[in-house]
């Protein structure tokens, strides 16, 4: 005697498969564009320096080669000392990307560990960890970075990576802590204990999987921040100037007065590269946001169907022959959104 399925739900036999394979299709347009931009840059970062025509540091001694505009030999022109801007750009993209990804991974890891631990253990642990998090968060990072790096000997990217990782985790930890607190009180966590699961399994397999979209958004945010911070640090001459990062390029462009000399090909490409990477990451983040928060997504998706969403109305659901296949499946209610930087802090977490 099998139970009759209610007719109102989506085609059930395939719904399970759609939930997993259709994930990519379900991502909003913003996210796909952002991901595409990012993929392009990652590709450049991987193969870039190998296809660079010149060594970035190589200074062409010929007088004509100084501050040339873009031409056939030097695709993006040369610097004051005859170096090929294009090669520098390729090298810079790789360096900046690698640095940002490492910082993103390290800081995200720290955020998750601190945030989940504080929320799960509660009590005094929570107070102490939260205090620590908030203190690191409130101290202004650039001056601190400047002071740190000012003392450390300038050798390679490692100091920058370490210091940036150490200062960019707190915001993510706050957000993750708030989310974990909310999840911790849900019945399925208690049910997991009922089953007899150990605490670490409850955290790893029941709580954290519900926060994946939040953690992903946090990672993207941190990478974004790391790019900006490392470029700024290099630009003001505090970080290592021996390696060719995008910030270094801008530093030399500024100090050699590229602006006044009209050598736009020197400082526009690195700036554009940074901006495009940031845009790609930001769009990706918005996409992840919308995936987790159906209201944001449905408002923009509804527009595609010509529905105008007015405030106060319930979020529109498109009907019609094309609707079932175009509108994305509603994501589980457990996923929440992370706001892009600067953060909008949830109340109750103060």
């Amino acid at each position, binding site marked *: 005697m099998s139970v009759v399925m209610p007719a109102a739900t989506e085609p059930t036999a395939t719904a399970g498969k759609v939930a997993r394979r259709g994930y990519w299709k379900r991502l909003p347009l913003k996210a796909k564009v952002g991901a595409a931009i990012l993929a392009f840059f990652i590709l450049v970062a991987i193969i870039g320096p190998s296809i660079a025509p010149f060594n970035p540091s190589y200074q062409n001694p010929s007088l004509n080669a100084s501050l040339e505009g873009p031409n056939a030999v030097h695709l993006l022109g040369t610097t004051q000392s005859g170096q090929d801007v294009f090669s520098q750009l390729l090298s810079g993209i790789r360096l900046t990307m690698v640095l940002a990804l490492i910082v993103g991974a390290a800081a995200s890891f720290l955020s998750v560990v601190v945030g989940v631990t504080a929320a799960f253990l509660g009590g005094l642990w929570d107070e102490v960890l939260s205090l620590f998090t908030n203190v690191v968060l*409130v*101290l202004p990072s650039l001056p601190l970075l400047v002071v740190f790096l000012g003392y450390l000997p300038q050798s390679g990217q490692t100091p920058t990576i370490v210091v940036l990782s150490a200062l960019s985790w707190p915001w993510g930890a706050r957000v993750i802590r708030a989310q974990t607190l909310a999840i911790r009180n849900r019945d399925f966590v208690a049910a997991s204990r009922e089953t007899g699961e150990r605490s670490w399994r409850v955290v790893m397999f029941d709580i954290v999987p519900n926060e994946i979209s939040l953690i992903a958004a946090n990672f993207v945010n941190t990478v974004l921040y790391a790019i900006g911070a490392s470029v700024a640090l290099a630009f003001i001459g505090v970080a290592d100037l021996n390696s060719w990062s995008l910030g270094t390029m801008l530093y030399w462009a500024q100090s050699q007065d590229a602006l006044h000399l009209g050598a736009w090909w020197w400082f526009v490409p690195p700036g554009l590269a940074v901006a495009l990477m940031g845009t790609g990451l930001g769009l990706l983040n918005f996409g992840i946001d919308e995936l987790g928060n159906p209201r944001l997504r449905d408002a923009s998706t509804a527009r595609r169907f010509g529905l105008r969403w007015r405030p106060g109305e319930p979020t529109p659901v498109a009907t019609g022959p094309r609707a079932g296949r175009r509108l994305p499946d509603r994501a589980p209610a457990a996923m929440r959104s992370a706001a892009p930087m600067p953060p*909008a802090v949830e109340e109750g977490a103060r």
Partner: protein
Amino acid sequence: MRYIARRLFFYAVAAFVALTVNFFIPRAIPGNAVEAIMSKYPNLQPGAEKALEAMLGVGHPGSIWHQYWQYLGDVVHFNFGTDLIQFPAKVSTILAAALPWTIVLVGVSTVIAFFLGTALGILAGWRNGGWSDNSLAPLMFLQSLPYFFLALVLIDVFAIKLGWLPAGQGFDGSVTTPGWSLSFISNAAQHAILPALTIVVTNVAGWMLTMRNVMITTVSEDYVLAAQAKGLANRRVVITYAARNAILPQLSGFANALGFVVSGAIVMEIVFAYPGIGQWLINAVSSNDYPLMQAIFLVITFAVLLANLLVDLVYIAVDPRARTRSTR
């Protein structure tokens, strides 16, 4: 009231941490690095050399706790020691001259950016799904531009090519002298336009985006629907009901972003050669002027903490729930 006490305690802890970190960093450097630093100053005057040694912990003048205590006392009396490079100028003098420039420029521009961004965000959130959505990508792009980049472009266009506005500096020394004269103020204001514009443009996008997101969520709450059902004018619903609630997370975001604002300002001052403390900080770093560097760090940190505290107080004034909250 307990809320305020908690916040004060928190800021006290943060200030304390900043002070301690500031104190211990130079003393924590490995020995060979200390030598490297000392060797950069072959011609230091004895008084400055002594001060530097004390700061780096060389020669163990007194126990570390004694030094710490003295350090705390010095800070409280605004005694930041003497500058290394411009010996015997006192650090506090340099700071006092530079601080007003930064506060005026950064303070005013940030506030303008916040209000403008919030207003635009309210509009975008209310009328969601239209132009605001399409403008997301360009806004994202604007926000991702390294802020100094925009500064460079603006200088290029307005100062060099068009010659409408000065390309840098706080004021034109050949035309006017510092003082409360009208010519000075107008000259300073003229020099402040481009930096301020840069700060506003690069920050507006961020405020607008977060406000938009918060508004979207707020606007779908039942009480907004109820307000509309009551027949209230749209504008009233937007401002008094929706925005009033949405502003709360936005305020919190503002407090959190203050640190970033300061960072942006530092870079801005370099690009525009603006005589604020950001400019001085970088100069200090490149000339290894450690006392000045540390003092500026402290000043910036305390300023940010103070600003955070002020925003907290504003938050209490705006959110009635925070006032009645007696437990955490």
